[in-house]
């Protein structure tokens, strides 16, 4: 049984999806509980896998029993085990959270929604766990197709936004496939670790270099790194609440993980930082992504849209951290993949609750929110503090490592960009909190000292619980930073870093 955990992570939600289709076609009410049960199973398997892995170990699971590179292999080290736990946890929380908003927004498509939801999670988990470059492509497409459908369920402007995403997403996926093809033509293998052992013999091959370019551009489009970010804000803004809660935290983070895999497992740190001289260019992209995301976020009145621009900025954090070429920077990136997943889901759930109660997520919707939705706003504050990077939330520690890495590699522009983005985040969240806290201005209403009563109308408990779990997870993760870093991240850092 123990050795089957890796595959269970993926196939439990997959079977759940099939059962959901059949059961949900006749009785939609059973969908949400089934989805929660399935994702819980997946989450528990992911945790069990994570705990199985010793320092620096790799668990290899042979699908179909064929030895790699001939069969498909699942390779789990503590890097993807961590990402798996994050993904399945976030998915589980959103599945619990989704019940009410889905009933409200997608009343007659509940079974479709949960089927696609669970399949999207399957795709993301499969992308994370697989050790095979082509298997990754297939699951990438599963995740992409489900996310197209889920985003397009938002109707109205969502269709056009999603269409743009379909086009760009397909370009991204095709570039990835083309990159895999070029690697296949030079190495004859699809297994990432196997390619990784062959590539060093091909030093100087232009094909390998161009393949790297295609792979990188492909994942950058998928993760919406500047200048490929154009599709993201619209697509996520017009999506249904539950969809954006799931897609926003996970899609981009998993793409970042894939970038790390390509960089450090398929290719090697030594090749990337010593042979090719791309680092300055990528660092510029990361810095511009951070600055641009932050400033566009500043200009938004719709909070959901504002958060989507913050995602663009956070992508810059992670790409920049990985490309500093330092152990600390890479640690920061890996840590931030998880931290940012949790932060984003927490904030999107908060926004989702506000939309659920007030219909919109404009600044005006937040008026008096502290009186009417105190618990929701509490979660907003914790999520916001983590975005800003206030200790002891985990946002602080990811910044700590990222800045350390940038300092070691003398990327001072990146440090400055990180700090500016923190400040912008601070301003943004101060603005929201101010509106939510102090909008009832005693001097502006006729009787300044009259007790200003606002009806208590917080989100339902089914939405508050996942929201607070994610908020508390932010703090818990911050407090256990040392543990996480020393036990799981440091042992798997590739050689060849500063």
């Amino acid at each position, binding site marked *: 049984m123990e050795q089957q955990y890796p595959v269970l992570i993926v196939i439990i939600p997959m079977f759940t999806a099939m059962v959901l289709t059949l059961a949900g076609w006749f009785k939609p009410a059973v969908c949400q509980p089934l989805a929660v049960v399935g994702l819980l199973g997946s989450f528990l398997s992911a945790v069990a896998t994570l705990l199985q892995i010793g320092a620096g170990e790799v668990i290899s699971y042979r699908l179909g029993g064929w030895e790699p590179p001939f069969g498909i292999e699942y390779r789990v080290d503590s890097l993807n085990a961590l990402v798996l736990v994050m993904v399945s946890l976030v998915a589980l929380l959103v599945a619990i959270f989704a019940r009410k908003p889905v009933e409200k927004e997608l009343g007659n498509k509940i079974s479709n929604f949960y089927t696609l939801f669970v399949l999207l999670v399957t795709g993301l988990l499969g992308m994370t766990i697989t050790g095979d470059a082509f298997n990754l492509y297939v699951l990438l497409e599963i995740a992409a197709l489900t996310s197209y459908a889920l985003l397009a369920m938002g109707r109205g402007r969502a269709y056009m936004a999603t269409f743009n995403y379909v086009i760009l997403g397909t370009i991204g996926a095709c570039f990835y496939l083309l990159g895999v093809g070029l690697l296949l033509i030079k190495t004859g293998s699809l297994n990432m670790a196997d390619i990784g052992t062959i590539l060093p013999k091909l030093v100087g091959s232009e094909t390998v270099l161009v393949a790297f370019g295609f792979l990188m551009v492909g994942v950058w489009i998928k993760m919406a790194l500047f200048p490929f970010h154009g599709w993201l804000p619209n697509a996520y803004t017009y999506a249904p609440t539950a969809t954006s809660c799931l897609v926003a935290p996970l899609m981009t983070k998993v793409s970042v993980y894939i970038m790390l895999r390509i960089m450090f497992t398929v290719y090697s740190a030594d090749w990337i930082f010593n042979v090719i001289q791309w680092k300055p260019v990528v660092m510029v992209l990361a810095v511009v992504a951070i600055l641009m995301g932050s400033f566009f976020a500043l200009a938004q009145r719709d909070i959901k849209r504002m958060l989507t621009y913050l995602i663009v900025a956070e992508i810059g954090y992670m790409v920049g951290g990985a490309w500093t070429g330092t152990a600390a920077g890479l640690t920061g990136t890996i840590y931030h993949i998880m931290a940012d997943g949790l932060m984003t889901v927490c904030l999107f759930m908060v926004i989702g609750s506000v939309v659920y109660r007030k219909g919109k997520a404009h600044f005006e919707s937040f008026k008096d929110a502290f009186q009417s939705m105190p618990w929701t706003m509490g979660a907003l504050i914790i999520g916001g503090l983590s975005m800003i990077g206030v200790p*002891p939330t985990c946002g602080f520690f990811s910044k700590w490592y990222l800045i*350390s890495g940038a300092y070691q590699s003398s990327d001072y522009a990146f440090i400055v960009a990180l700090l500016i983005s923190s400040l912008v985040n601070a301003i943004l969240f101060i603005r929201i909190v101010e509106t939510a806290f102090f909008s009832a201005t005693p001097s502006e209403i006729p009787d300044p000292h009259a007790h*200003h009563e606002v009806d208590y109308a917080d989100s339902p408990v089914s939405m508050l619980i996942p929201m607070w779990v994610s908020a508390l997870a932010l703090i818990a993760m911050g407090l256990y930073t040392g543990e996480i870093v020393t036990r799981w991240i440091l042992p798997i850092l590739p050689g060849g870093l500063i």
Partner: protein
Amino acid sequence: MSQSIVSFTPLAIVLTSALAVIPISLSGRNPNLRELWTFLAGFLKLMLLFSLLEPVTKGIAVQFELWKVLPGVSLHFSVDAFGLLFAFVACSLWIPTSLYVIGYMRGLKEHAQTRFFACFALALSATAGVAFAGNLLTLYVFYEILSLSTFPLVAHHQDGEARTGGRKYLTYLLATSIGLVLPAMIITYQMTGTLEFSSMGIYGDTVKPGTLLVLLLLFLYGFAKSGLMPLHSWLPGAMVAPTPVSALLHAVAVVKVGVFCNLRVITGIFGIEILSKTYLDTVICVIAGVTVIVSSLIALSQDNLKRRLAFSTVGQLSYIILGAGLAQSYAVKGAMLHISMHAFGKITLFMCAGAIFVASGKKYISQMVGLGHKMPFTFGAFLIGSLSVIGLPPAGGFISKWLLLKGTIAAEHWPMMVVLLGSSLLNAAYFFPIVYQAFFGKGILPENENVKEAPLACTLPLCLTAVISIVLFVYPEPFLTLATLAVGE
């Protein structure tokens, strides 16, 4: 520190007021019960502090490790004489201020009192946390908590002005702490591998003076709560807060935390010796000296009483930093002592300003002509507070300023002596006219004819702190002992 013991007491002190937030928020519907909790927590905290006095005066550091967050860095408390001194100042002033808050808030029938008391208690916890912080990270954590917990207090009035002030307040403090302190801290950690305070400094001899200068500036300006120019303008802006907030937070907790952090960094991270070896002490002195003089000049021109007090605070804070920058044991002792002396003096002044506002509704100095006869206790206390801040006997401020002066002489830092003396004159120039006009000025405003003293809950605390200011002149031993210990003599 040669010896140390492990004890829960520092944590308990920090937690007393933090935990008090829960009963305070729960008993929002019963104001008397709510305030009982505040006082209980206040006294409990003070008693716990006294229990720390004994080991600390024997030169034993009280340690408590809270949590290991990063490899090599943990959140931990370490109580030494300086920290204890600061904690004493903050906690002992909490009780009279609470009393005063009750009188003030109920007198003006302010809204959202429960939120106010809850945040107040939280701010006190953060202050204690800063005082006991054993390393830079812990210091930073509690510094941030303090910024955030005081934001609702500053923006308490919820009108346009309060929101602007609050936004400015938080933006300045967060921007500097994230933008300057955080990178400085990370760079320090990268260079030295530690963030623990050490009286020798942690940089060693290998770091270049240029780097040290940059780090020093990052730290000095990063802790913007200390109001060094040009990053001082949040402080007058934050005066939109209700007066008790200005009193406790902007005379004691918040600004003193900033100064305390600066002192900690100067003595614990850089180390006095390295600073004087690299002549960086002069940099500190110049920055602080300029701030002292300029802010005193600005204060002269302010008509709003609270703003004048605010600029006075900016100047006085820089005395403390200047004292540390002199890198001389008398001066450092004077600086530490000035934290407490100025705290008692300034809180008296702020409470007086609040009491005047409660009684007469007046904010501007020009409208207070002749009020002295109507409110003799308030203005009497104001006089004593002024004396203390200026540094004249018979108030406690004299002792600290005297020590500072002695420090300049011992260090043969003549320009700084001129700065100290000159600014004391300026202090006198902006305080005495207020008192003079109140008692001897002609032409009392017609609407002031019927003004009486503020309610007892307002007047009593300010008289109390005024008396303490005088007592501290006669009997400064408690704080002096701690300061002497902290300097290490």
